């Protein structure tokens, strides 16, 4: 069974640009979660999607947004990038049980 896949693995952007990160959940999982793991800050909850709808949002500004597609894959968009957005972005999927995480996208803003 394929795990949660995230792309790209690494992404380098300039301040002010937009970044798009992608996530494919485990087949059959309808829920997708996004977390930010910045250095020294642990894992911060960003967004939860289920059945194509945004169900919950963490304490992040509106320039962090996303969507979930009919096949349950998901996209995270970060607009107007700031230096402090540099982090590992982790996606996880679930069908009500424990999360399965992808390996993440390392976003570097220069």
């Amino acid at each position, binding site marked *: 069974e394929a795990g*949660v896949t995230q792309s790209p693995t690494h992404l380098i952007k300039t301040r002010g640009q937009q970044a798009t990160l992608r996530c494919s959940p485990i087949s059959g999982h309808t829920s997708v*979660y996004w977390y930010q793991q910045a250095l020294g800050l*642990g894992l911060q*909850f960003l967004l939860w999607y289920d059945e194509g709808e945004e169900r*919950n949002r963490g304490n992040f500004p509106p320039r962090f947004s996303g969507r979930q597609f009919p096949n349950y894959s998901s996209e995270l968009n970060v607009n107007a990038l700031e230096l402090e957005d540099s982090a590992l972005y982790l996606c*996880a999927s679930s069908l009500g049980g*424990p999360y399965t*995480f992808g390996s*993440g996208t390392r976003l570097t803003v220069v």
Partner: protein
Amino acid sequence: AQSVAQPEDQVNVAEGNPLTVKCTYSVSGNPYLFWYVQYPNRGLQFLLKYITGDNLVKGSYGFEAEFNKSQTSFHLKKPSALVSDSALYFCAVRDSYQGAQKLVFGQGTRLTINP
């Protein structure tokens, strides 16, 4: 809101010795608790969970965790540490407040096993 705390940023243990990684929780209602491990440049891997039942939960790679309601703790343990156990460990609690259904993680504990 639900939360967990990991009081130790770093734990060092000699190979072959028992290890403990500490976690305390603060929840309203029954806690759903989890342990995850993160190896360098990787995502998190699920180790074990406590939902209900026995206070001693067994998980992957020989790890176990003890749920203690009176002390609001959920410490991760292993009888004999391996060098390959060196990693970053996260405790988490499920937060269902207002239908959130998300995991809230502790800050993580870096475990180093010395040969």
